[in-house]
């Protein structure tokens, strides 16, 4: 089926963004309202499409729209085409829904910023790019949205780029993303060389004939792309620094939507991964490493936003891992993605609300006992907290439990290892989130003098409340009657696999709940009483390494930055002295030989006479030699 409306999803926010940028200060008074309305209207369009989709039979739910031929050279044909199927509608609703809530939140949060209009222009640009990412019908169209959200992220992280370290964080994010884009570029090349097409449909048709090498290579390249965008190992280091952006940005881009694009990419490319087991294994490994990596970092962070960022990294690790399990896992990856979208966005907005009340203080060591002063924030935050650690029946419980179960179900020793890693992750998640809760909302007051915590205005807490509701209920809604699994099946699980159970579901659930209890209990014991205002310094080497983000920046610096800078210096010198040196050497040798030959011109008649004589003799001799 085709639809005429899909383009508006992308065009409306893009137009609004351009308008706000071009009008400049003239739009200052109404820009934020306009942008929010546009964002809301995309949500309405998305919802209408969703209801229309439900009404159609399963086979014809997907709709497409071809706009125009974008690039066409020889056999390389790429249409500017959009496709809205069961997978992308889930994203469309998440992006526009959470996006609109965050627009509303930002109206209040950014009200004192002189550049609020610019902020909203960027937000709308992000919405447009993100929608293009999930709606594009080929890897190249997806690429446009992919880099578009990267640009939006760059602009928003560096929104306060007058501070040099914020500008650096923005640059770091963009470059790490570019390293991922390298993977996407190569994947596009592999796709064209093998299948003669870059559209999802075109590749899927021919995927059976492809060699294992090509599919594995393409899968690994897509994984690299996903790692860049979703802050997965080894390209994870940018996400912590990205917290330099305004908090609504962290909630929308760096928690709920953009960073999950990697999961979308892998799920969308299911036809590649399902045929490339090696690449799938790599996906699982990356997921596991990152979920533990992020969780461990989260334990040592005192900066509330960075702790949440580490948590995001870890939760996306779960999703990536799940998507590596193939048809059994895609639906749960997407389900966790959606529930995570709710509770993590809610948590970030809550953190923003706390910062708003505490003069932009982010250090949890300077919080404490805020529950009484910020009741609404602490309740919505608390609901998000229950959801993320996986307390039944909150959202995270359903989605995480299912991922752990699928991990065990891969079977054999492998399954036990995967499942245990996921369980360990759940323990640590429960630990660091409980720590965060206790340090922020309970315990002794450790405020900076002058802090007057107060509840945030309605425009801020209303979105938080909606998200908290989602954190509470979305898991059940998505999972009851296997709704999400059945909904996504036509896209990701066409053959309707039935999966063997390795452990009975109830055992896994029990294990997961026990894991949560352990984590919470340990955190309670450790962070119950009075805490000091500064982080203790007499700590083990482990804690110190964790505080340094497990040396991720040091590793990057040692492996890439330093050698890169050295190489650049050497090349600049080489260019100067060797290559240009060679050129200048030619010049100076001409000059030098001219200087030498000038000596022949002495000005003495006798020298000239002698030369004439010698010349005549040589000519004579030559003539003789030639005649003989």
């Amino acid at each position, binding site marked *: 089926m085709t639809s005429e409306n899909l383009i508006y999803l992308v065009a409306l926010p893009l137009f609004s963004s351009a308008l706000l940028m071009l009008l400049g200060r003239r739009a200052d008074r109404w820009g934020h309202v306009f942008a929010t309305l546009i964002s809301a209207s995309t949500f309405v369009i998305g919802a209408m499409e969703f209801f229309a989709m439900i009404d159609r039979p399963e086979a014809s739910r997907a709709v497409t729209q071809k706009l125009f031929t974008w690039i066409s050279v020889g056999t390389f044909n790429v249409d500017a085409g959009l496709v809205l199927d069961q997978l992308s509608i889930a994203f469309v609703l998440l992006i526009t829904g959470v996006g609109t809530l965050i627009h509303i939140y930002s109206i209040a949060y950014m009200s004192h910023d002189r550049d609020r209009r610019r902020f909203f222009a960027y937000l709308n640009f992000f919405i447009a790019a993100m929608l293009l990412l999930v709606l594009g019908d080929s890897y190249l169209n997806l690429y446009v949205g992919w880099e578009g959200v990267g640009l939006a992220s760059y602009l928003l992280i560096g929104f306060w780029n007058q501070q040099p370290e914020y500008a650096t964080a923005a640059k770091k994010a963009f470059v790490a993303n570019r390293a991922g884009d390298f993977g996407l570029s190569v994947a596009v090349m592999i796709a064209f060389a093998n299948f003669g097409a870059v559209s999802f449909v075109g590749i899927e048709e021919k995927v059976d004939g492809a060699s294992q090498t090509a599919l594995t290579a393409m899968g690994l390249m897509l994984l690299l792309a996903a790692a860049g965008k979703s802050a997965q190992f080894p390209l994870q280091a940018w996400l912590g620094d990205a917290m330099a952006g305004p908090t609504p940005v962290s909630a929308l881009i760096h928690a709920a939507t953009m960073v999950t694009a990697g999961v979308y990419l892998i799920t969308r490319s299911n036809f590649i991964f399902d045929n490339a087991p090696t690449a799938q294994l790599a996906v699982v490994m990356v997921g596991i490493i990152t979920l533990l990596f992020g969780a461990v970092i989260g334990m040592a962070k005192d900066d509330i936003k960075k702790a949440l960022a580490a948590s995001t990294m870890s939760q996306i690790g779960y999703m990536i891992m799940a998507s590596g399990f193939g048809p059994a896992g895609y639906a749960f990856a997407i389900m966790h993605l959606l529930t995570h979208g709710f509770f993590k966005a809610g948590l970030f907005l809550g953190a923003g609300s706390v910062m708003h009340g505490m003069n932009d203080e982010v250090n949890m060591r300077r919080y404490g006992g805020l529950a009484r002063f910020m009741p609404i924030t602490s309740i919505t935050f608390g609901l998000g907290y229950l959801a993320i650690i996986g307390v039944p029946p909150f959202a995270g419980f359903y989605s995480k439990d299912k991922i752990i179960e699928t991990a065990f179900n891969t079977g054999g020793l492998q399954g036990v290892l995967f499942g245990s890693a996921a369980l360990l992750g759940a323990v640590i998640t429960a630990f660091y989130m409980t720590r965060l809760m206790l340090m922020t909302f309970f315990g002794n007051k450790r405020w900076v003098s002058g802090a007057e915590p107060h509840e945030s205005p309605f425009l801020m807490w209303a979105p938080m409340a909606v998200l908290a509701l989602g954190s509470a209920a979305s898991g059940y809604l998505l999972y009851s009657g296997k709704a999400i699994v059945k909904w996504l099946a036509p896209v990701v699980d066409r053959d309707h696999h039935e999966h063997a159970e390795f452990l009975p579901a109830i055992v896994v659930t029990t294990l997961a709940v026990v894991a949560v209890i352990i984590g919470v209990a340990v955190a309670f014991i450790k962070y119950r009483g009075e805490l000091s205002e500064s982080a203790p310094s007499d700590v083990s080497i482990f804690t110190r390494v964790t505080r340094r983000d497990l040396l991720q920046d040091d590793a990057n610096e040692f492996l890439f930055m330093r050698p890169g800078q050295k190489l650049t210096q050497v090349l600049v010198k080489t260019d100067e002295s060797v290559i240009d040196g060679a050129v200048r050497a030619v010049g100076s040798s001409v000059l030098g030989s001219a200087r030498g030959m000038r000596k022949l011109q002495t000005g*003495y008649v006798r020298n000239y006479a*002698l030369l004439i004589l010698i010349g005549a003799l040589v000519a004579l001799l030559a003539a003789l030699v030639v005649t003989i």
Partner: protein
Amino acid sequence: MNPTNYLYLSAILFSIGAVGVVVRKNAIVVFMCIELMLNAANLAFVTFAKINGNLEGQVMAFFTMVVAACEVVVGLAIIVTIFRSRRSASVDDASLLSR
């Protein structure tokens, strides 16, 4: 007498003249050496005319003499002018090139 002996004489005279041009500094002497070379050439011309039994060589000798006379006029005039301005008849002093 064998005419080739004249040619040897001509060659010796020419060489003396050439060496003189190269080694002597006095402009007048250099000039005389040039004359010597011209006359050596004349001698060779005349000798060849004798050997070949025709007149071309002799005619050339006359031409050479005319040219030499003109050259003496112009050359001496230059030497005198240089001597007047520099108070020296040395050819080395006439060099204007810097070293």
